[in-house]
């Protein structure tokens, strides 16, 4: 097997890995402050992709607005809208469940997933619609020296990495981030110091949702946009989160990248296992390091 094939698959794997990283990062950020797992995270990723698609080709047909939101515009608008939806869900529903067993939060977001997925399945083909709005400047391939790689995919990798590490830097190294971490550590005490914890919780949920929406826009030109695109992905991301543990932000990012890479390489060496390799790795981690690689059990 040539080195080139392996490197190509590794890069493609990394491409998937950045999506895992962005989604598990969002889950980890939300989990830290709200102690719930957002099942709707996959649906929000799908929503991001659909906002990009609708903004590009359906605004006139559906709403009679003669406006076209291009890829760059979607990169801004979609996370904003998805984040707002997240804020709405947190304020109207999740907030009321805060004192109950955390499984209710999971069940609620599962219900929301069904609603979102069902709504889009009514109007769009389940097998997917291609996104036509990939910008001209990102089409074609670049020469990496050892191989040619699609420019857009390279852009998606770099852009996602920048977003992930910026989030990490913000949480770990800024004043606002330190307040957030204080809220994670001890919400009551943080509140007593005069910080508005409920507002932090709401904004955090919105931010996590926005990250998922952003990942969706980035994924739209690569995969076809489908109502089920998030559902299959989110279960893998759950496994990623179990493997990495949600105790650390960097842990969530690194395990997402590493597992995408491993999945990509499995496609080279033993293709039939590519869709399950992450789950089997999860089994190994549960056997030998139950709290997860970077985990602090909560």
């Amino acid at each position: 097997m040539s080195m080139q094939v392996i490197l190509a698959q590794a890069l493609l794997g990394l491409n998937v890995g950045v999506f895992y990283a962005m989604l598990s990062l969002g889950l980890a950020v939300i989990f830290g402050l709200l102690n719930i797992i957002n099942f709707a995270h996959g649906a929000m990723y799908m929503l991001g992709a659909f906002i990009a698609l609708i903004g590009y080709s359906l605004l006139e047909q559906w709403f009679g607005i003669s406006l076209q939101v291009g890829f760059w515009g979607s990169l801004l608008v979609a996370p904003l809208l998805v984040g707002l939806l997240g804020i709405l869900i947190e304020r109207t529903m999740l907030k009321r469940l805060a004192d109950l067993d955390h499984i209710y939060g999971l069940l609620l977001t599962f219900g929301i997933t069904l609603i979102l997925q069902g709504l889009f399945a009514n109007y769009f083909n389940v097998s997917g619609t291609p996104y036509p709005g990939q910008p001209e400047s990102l089409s074609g391939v670049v020469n990496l020296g050892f191989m040619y790689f699609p420019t857009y995919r390279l852009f998606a990798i770099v852009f996602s990495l920048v977003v992930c590490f910026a989030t990490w830097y913000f949480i770990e190294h800024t004043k606002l981030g330190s307040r957030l971490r204080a809220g994670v550590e001890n919400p009551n005490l943080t509140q007593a110091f005069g910080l508005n914890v409920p507002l932090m919780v709401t904004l955090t949920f919105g931010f996590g949702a926005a990250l998922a929406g952003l990942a969706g826009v980035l994924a739209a030109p690569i995969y076809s946009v489908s109502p089920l695109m998030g559902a299959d992905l989110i279960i893998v991301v759950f496994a990623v989160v179990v493997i990495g543990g949600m105790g650390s932000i960097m842990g969530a990012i690194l395990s997402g990248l590493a597992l995408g890479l491993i999945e990509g390489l499995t496609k080279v060496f033993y293709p039939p296992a590519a869709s399950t390799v992450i789950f089997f790795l999860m089994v190994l981690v549960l056997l030998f390091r139950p709290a997860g690689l970077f985990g602090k059990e909560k």
Partner: protein
Amino acid sequence: MMNRILLVIMIVLGLTAPFFAYPVFVMDLLCFALFACAFNLLLGYAGLLSFGHAAFFGGAAYVAGYALKEWGFPPLLGILTGTGFALLLGTVFGYLAIRRQGIYFAMVTLALAQIIYFLALQLPFTGGENGLQRIPRGELFGFIDLNNELAMYYLVLAIFLIGFGIIYRTIHSPFGEVLQAIRENESRALSLGYDVDHFKLMAFVISATLAGLAGATKALIFQFAALTNAHWQTSGEVILMTLVGGLGTVFGPVVGAITVASLSHELSSFGSWVQVILGVIFVFCVMVFRRGIIGELQHRLSRRKG
């Protein structure tokens, strides 16, 4: 008292149902009801949320179907083979999943179940997306032809009642009391000297096995092991059934299964709106109707008594 009345109603309805309802539909309801009861044993009494019960339900359906079709097993042995598979799978998954708690438990079971889904999709003998078709019903004890809908119906009813009886006995045994103690306060149960992990694993295995019994029976009824039975959406549906009927009540899952399955059946012409409606019911139950139908009924009755 209320449970006794409900038990009598359930048995009378069960015995007479094929004379006023479409037997195959009622058999489908019975399978889902048993599935939901098995699930409820785990979530309602041990407090463990499994998001992967479709693996046992669907997995057992495939194994039972394969045994009946390819090995020519008689019907009961086929169902037992499927159920036995669910028992083994439940032991392995349970052993792995109880290593994590709460929300992680749900994620682990969901991810493990996805392995079974992909195996069902990819293995050479499962029929891929078409599932396992034309499974023969065969003859019960060698002389009762199960292609007769009525004979098939009463077999399914008997299986349901046996499964329900096992769950009822489990809940109302000292073992069941310990499970509830673990649900209420795990560390206290631990400090009282109970081997918590052992109890959790036992509950998981019983629940998985009975979910498998329901799935294997379903494969025999419809002569078909479907990929959707192993899909995570089926895991979600069984949660919804239990939630609608009443978490941690004996008859809640039965009522919930009948409600949800009838609703999906009635609405099936609306395409993917069914999913939206199920989602709305999910949100409604979680937000304002957490006791479920039977739970709410019990609550009102006990309040009236003072």
